[in-house]
Structures are given as C-alpha cells and as structure tokens.
C-alpha cells in the first residue's frame, strides 16, 4: 500500500525539485549583492583569482640584492627537466667569480610546470611565480630568455588587457 502511494504521488521528484528550487531562488533573489555570493562561479576576469602560495606558475630567474643573477650554471635544472626545455650556456663575466649564464633559454611551450628545476637548484636562483595567464598570440613569445627576446625571464609575463577591474 505504501509503495502504491509512493508510486502514485511523486514525492521523490518533489524532493529533487525542492533542492534545485532552493538553489534557484537563492541565486535569483540575491543577484551578486552578497559578500560571498550564492553562485559558486566567480566572474573572472572582473573578479581577481586567488592562488595559493605554493602555486606553480612560470619560471622566473632571480637576482640578488646587488642586481646580480644568482644562477651559477650548475646545470642541475637542465638535467632534471623531464621535457628538456631549459638550455644554459656557461660563460664568464668580469667581477664575478662564479660562471655566468650567457644564455638561459626556457621554452614555455613544452614546460609542464612540475617544479623539479626549482627543487634541484641548490642556489635558490629560480622560482615558479604565480602567473597562470600565460597565453600568447604567437609562438615566439613563448620562448623566454634573459635578453633580446620579447619576454624575459626576470619579470612576470605581460598579461593581455582583459580585465575590466583595471578601469
């Protein structure tokens, strides 16, 4: 009898409808006015994205307080990289005892952002910054180096102007 009544009266469907109805009315009637909105989709790019501190972004070469490149060409990062995107050329610079990287090329095209290079560096000379907006319109922009190229390794990549929040 109970089963017959439950088949006749669609209570299970009504339960499902009440859940979705509740979510609908919550989102519909508050319209972005709440601090923590009911709709869980954040409206990027107007709303900035928070990344966690350990986020693995783009490889960046570091300079110390005197403005000297910290890298000493130990080639550990080049050897450990699983996709072999780093190319370093050793050289010498006056006034500096350790070797100096004449060329530090990084192909962001094939980088898998695994942070093995940072882990293997014993001199804290590279980090992965917090950038995830790394798309570009041409392939040349994705080969980074120390100088002479479109993007360079020391500063964050230029980000296309897309955010209305900047206005």
């Amino acid at each position, binding site marked *: 009898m109970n089963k017959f009544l439950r088949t006749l009266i*669609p209570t299970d*469907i009504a339960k*499902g*409808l009440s*859940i*979705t*109805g509740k*979510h*609908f009315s919550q*989102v*519909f009637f508050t*319209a*972005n*006015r709440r601090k923590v909105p*009911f*709709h*869980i*989709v954040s*409206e990027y*790019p*107007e709303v900035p994205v928070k990344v966690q501190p350990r986020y693995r972004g783009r490889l960046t070469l570091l300079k110390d307080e005197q403005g000297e490149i910290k890298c000493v060409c130990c080639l550990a990062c080049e050897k450990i990289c699983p996709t072999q995107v780093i190319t370093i050329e050793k050289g010498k610079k006056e006034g500096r005892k350790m070797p100096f990287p004449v060329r530090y090329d990084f192909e962001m095209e094939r980088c898998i952002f695994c942070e093995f290079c940072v882990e293997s560096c014993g001199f804290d000379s590279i980090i992965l910054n917090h950038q995830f907006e790394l798309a570009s319109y041409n392939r040349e922009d994705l080969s980074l180096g120390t100088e002479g190229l479109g993007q360079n390794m020391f500063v964050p990549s230029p980000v296309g*102007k*897309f*955010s*209305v929040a900047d*206005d």
Partner: protein
Amino acid sequence: MPTPTLTQSIVITLIQCLLVVIFVFVVVPLTVFAERKVLGHLQQRLGSTRVASGHVGVTGWMNRGMWKWGRIPVLSYWRGIPGLLADVLKLILKEDIIPTKADRFVFFLAPSISMVSAVVVFAAISFVPGTFFTFPVWFPFVGGLPVSGGIADINVGLLWILGVATVGVYGIVLAGWSSNSKYPLLGGLRSAAQMVSYEVPLALSLLAPVVLSASLNFGEMSARMATGMPFWALVPQVIGFLLYLTCGFAETNRLPFDMPEAENELVAGFHTEYSGMKFGFFYLAEYINMTVVAALASAFFLGGPWLLPFGLQGLLIPASVPFIGQPHAIFFVAKIVFLLFTYIWVRGTIPRYRYDQIMAVGWKYLIPMALINLLLAAAIRCFAV
C-alpha cells in the same frame, strides 16, 4: 458598436494574427534565454552573462555594461540578452547544408510543417474571452471596432487545437526520413512513436475539463473551469493537471522524455542533418509547442485569465468593477510563464527515461490514470456541480 464590414473583419483578423505572432516570437526567444539563465541559477551558477570576445569593440562595451548591472536586482537577470541576439544571428547567417542524397523537397518542407502547425494552434486559443480592446475612433479604416481575445473562438476549439498540434509529428517523421542517414531516421521514428503514443493520455486528460464544463469552446471551458464551479479548477483536477503536464513534457520531447534527442547517444536525433535556420525552425517549434501546452494547462487547470493565486484578482482590480467577471490577459500570460519555468525546472532536476520505459509509462500507467481521472470528473459533474 457598429458592425464591421467584411474587409474590416479581415483587417481586424490580420491585426490579431500579427499580435499573436508578435506574442509568440517574443515569448519563445525569451524562453530560450530563460532556459539558459534558469538552468544556470539552479545549478548555482549564473547562466549566460557575457557575449563574444570579451573586452574589445562593441561586444566589449556591452560586457562592461553588463558587469556593472550585476548588482542591480532586476537588471542583473538580463545580463546575457545580447547572447540571445547573437544566437539568432548565428542561426540566420549559417551555411545551409543539405546532404547530397537527401530528398530536397521534403527536407525543405519538414521544418516548415513543424513550425506552421505549432503556430497555427494559437488561432483557437483565446487569451481573453469577449473583447480584448477596442480600436480608438481615429484609427484608420478600423477605428471604433472591437478586437476579441481569440482569433477564432470556434465551438470545437479544443478539438481543433488537438488536431492541429498533432500535425507537428509529420514534421519530425519527414525530417528523419528525408535526411537519408541512420541516426536521424532512428531518432525521427522514435520521436514520432513517442509523440503519437502520448497523444492518447493527453486527450483523455483534457476530456475531464470538457466533462466538467460541458463545452468544447476554449473561452467557455476556461471560464467555467475557473469560475463556474463552487471551487477552483485545480481542486478536483490535481491528477488531471499533473497528468496533462506529464503528457505535455512527452509531446514536446523535453526531459524526462527527451531520449529521442538525447545527445549522449544519438547525437541529436531527427534534426542531426539540419543546420542554420532550418534547425532554428525545429528549435523554435519545440518551444512554441511548449508554450501551447502551457497555455492549455493554464487556461483549463490553473484558472486562465480569471484567477490569481489566493484570490488576489480581487485586490488588483479597482473596486468599481464586479469581482468575478473581469478577466485579464496578463494573468493568463503570467501563468504561461510560470509553467514554462516549471518546464525548465524539471529539465534541470530529473534524469531521463529510457525509450522502452517511456512507452511503458505512457501506455501502461498514464492511460489508466487518465481514465480514472475522467471517471472522477464525471462523478463530480454528476453530484457536485
């Protein structure tokens, strides 16, 4: 009031047709838009809020405006409207692909049949019984003449509506067959079989209001179901209403009965090979059918242009006008909109039936229930009304 001459009647009818077409082609794209937004909202996201490339050019300017609307209560809901316009433009400007081996004439004819049979149903639906409005005297050629609420308030209105709506099945079958390809054929056949088999409980569930109101005339049925009985129409007809809505879902191939066009399995069912505005016609025809089902349900079961929930119709009408005799087209339209919202609400919530289960539900469960409902209606008519 002067009696209109023949030409004047024809002109009035043409103006009515124009009004109906405007109504349909305003409500239907808004339903498409509402589907996106309502589905989004009940999935805890916002639906469509921006359009095209984002921040450059005209679309960028629109997106920036829409972002600023975000906090304003009513306006924030309309944020994705340019997207609707973009969709319509896309459908119109798309390349019209016809498969080589397809039967060209039938391929061309099928979406037209679907669309025409869907829109023509509105001829017998009267939004307001009696006069809708009267042309002001200065109006050229038809000044001073009344316009009735329905284009053709014929005595067998319901019969006519059901008959014409069924012609839409032709469009689907012909579309599936003329595409000359496996998937549309399968989808078309299944869809047609489903629609035809749900016509029976649909008609049976609509027979109950006929019994209760002793007429087939649309306006008279609506009036009697709303105000001619000691209680509101829904009270004796709860089962009938739910039954009718379920059959309506099946007739228009919407979830939970949309297996023939379930994308996960057969790509897109009978309209796989259609592109551009021909596909647009099928798409619009589906939504117009939804509107027709909603119109019938709100006229017969929900009280039509007469009633508002909780007797509010008494409050909204000025005191000088008699309480029960004032129908408003706006109530009718509001109920249609509410039922369309229910369509979308149900789509977002429940899974879909398998094809053999659709048939089983239609033939084995809904028809007996419709017959019992009819019996109930007859009993009420006999003893209570």
